[in-house]
């Protein structure tokens, strides 16, 4: 190691505010913070900012306030543009992985193979989510993908993940990725769903059904067959108690399987720093306990977006704005329209979570300790 880099390693960078994660929540938090004339550092482990938005080619739901009817890829571009306008206030570190978070608010990162320490006064954690996996025989065969990987291959890199595929899971991700697979010319043989009802929006279900894809509810994957890669899968029907019904096995010849069975908050950093956590199944698993200001049990540690509970990207956007406003307010920097914006964003969140699809989220948030933004 050269003398120069040794000096660099010892050096502790000081920042008032560090935002971890450059997806919709982190980007929107950074924007609010900069608008309040507060500087911050935005760290993301990917080479391109935007989180999952950069592979979402479909139009978003919600209201136009959260970029409804705009495609995810274009929302990413807009949000990144907003943040880059404030290059004097927002220090963006892309391709940088946070490897440690400590109670004295020291963030340690790996950047260009170098270990760097940052001392923060406040931290906003917007790390998003990871995909849930499904246990079945041979689930580690090549060709068995998570839906996120399929979307990345197709929509970021332009690579077809397979030719004949079965989708496991009919939530919005399963339905949307099926549609996008068909746009890419992949033959989607079936969408199977363990629950007796389709999980996602029915408009998405109707979109794939009219293209001729069968959606089979009360059905799960039993095993994958193949040596070097997946060649076939066997599915089986489930009864009302989710027990397998013998004799209902069905085989599909495939070269890929896509697993889309839900997301779980990415909370490792929150656990590491010692935030109080709680298991809330409605929010996707282990979540931090937060107050109505998006602050965790540790003062000045905030969380927003999927990391605090799985919801839609539209909610992550609004939560990001709110976490940003709260964090800089506590640091003594008021957004010129602070009160007006807070009311507006709280109203937007309540509105987004209001319908039948928001019911699970409303129950989850009450368990998590947030009583605001749900009616």
């Amino acid at each position, binding site marked *: 190691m050269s003398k120069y880099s040794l000096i660099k390693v010892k050096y502790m960078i000081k920042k008032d505010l560090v935002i971890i994660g450059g997806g919709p929540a982190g980007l929107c938090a950074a924007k609010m913070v900069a608008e309040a004339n507060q500087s911050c550092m935005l760290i993301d482990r990917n080479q391109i900012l935007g989180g999952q938005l950069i592979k979402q080619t479909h139009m978003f739901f919600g209201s136009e306030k959260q970029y409804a009817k705009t495609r995810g890829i274009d929302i990413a571009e807009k949000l990144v543009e907003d943040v880059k306008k404030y290059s004097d206030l927002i220090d963006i570190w892309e391709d940088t992985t946070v490897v440690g978070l400590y109670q004295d608010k020291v963030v340690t990162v790996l950047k260009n193979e170098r270990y760097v320490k940052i001392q923060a006064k406040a931290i906003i954690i917007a790390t998003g989510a990871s995909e849930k996996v499904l246990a079945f025989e041979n689930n580690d065969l090549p060709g068995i993908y998570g839906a996120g990987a399929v979307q990345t291959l197709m929509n970021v890199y332009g690579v077809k993940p397979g030719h004949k595929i079965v989708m496991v899971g009919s939530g919005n991700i399963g339905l949307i990725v099926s549609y996008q697979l*068909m746009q890419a010319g992949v033959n989607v043989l079936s969408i199977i769903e363990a629950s007796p009802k389709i999980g996602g929006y029915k408009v998405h279900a109707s979109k794939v*059904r009219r293209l*001729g894809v069968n959606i089979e509810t009360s059905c799960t994957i039993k095993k994958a067959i193949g040596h070097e890669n997946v060649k076939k899968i066997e599915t089986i029907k489930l009864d009302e108690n989710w027990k397998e019904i013998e004799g209902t096995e069905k085989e599909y010849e495939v070269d890929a399987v896509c697993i889309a069975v839900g997301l779980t908050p990415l909370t490792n950093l929150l656990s590491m720093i010692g935030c109080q956590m709680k298991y809330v199944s409605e929010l996707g698993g282990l979540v931090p306990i937060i107050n109505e200001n998006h602050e965790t049990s540790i003062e000045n540690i905030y969380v927003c977006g999927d990391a605090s509970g799985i919801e839609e990207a539209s909610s992550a956007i609004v939560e990001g704005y709110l976490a940003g406003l709260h964090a800089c307010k506590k640091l003594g920097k008021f957004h010129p329209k602070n009160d007006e914006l807070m009311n507006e964003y709280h109203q937007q969140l309540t509105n987004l*979570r209001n319908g039948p699809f928001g019911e699970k989220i409303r129950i989850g948030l009450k368990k998590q300790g947030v009583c605001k933004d749900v009616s």
Partner: protein
Amino acid sequence: MLVKDGVATYEQVISRFPKQEFLVKPKAIIECYENIPCNPCSTSCPFDAITILEDINQLPKIDFDKCTGCGVCIYNCPGLAIMVCQIIGDKVRFKIPYEFLPYPNESETWHAINRKGEIIGDALIEKVMLTKRQDRTAVIQVLVDKENLYDFVTIRRKI
């Protein structure tokens, strides 16, 4: 059944159509059956014909007297759940959203497809519209037999 296989029932479908005498002029058919948080159809309508109340989880309501069948809502609906239809003699002219390449060419004949993805007849391609405002959702104008009024939903290339 919609919640089981993604196919709306006949009753659901016809509940979204006006009386046939309205369809001498083009009208939007909004197949939004579920309370989801979404409102671009309402905010994009240039004639204020589509209303979603304060709570964006409400279903859209369309006023067929105000609807001109202009088709702006077709490509603004993130769920691709809106089409425009007009009865012309023994035929129906539909405008539908379409997001697959290659696009059809005018005057080709494609399959007419129902909500289950089955072939129900022919669809004559009259127009392929794709302006910048449509943001990569093409609108295809087709002519199908009137008997397919409540069945037709999309098109598929003949192979």
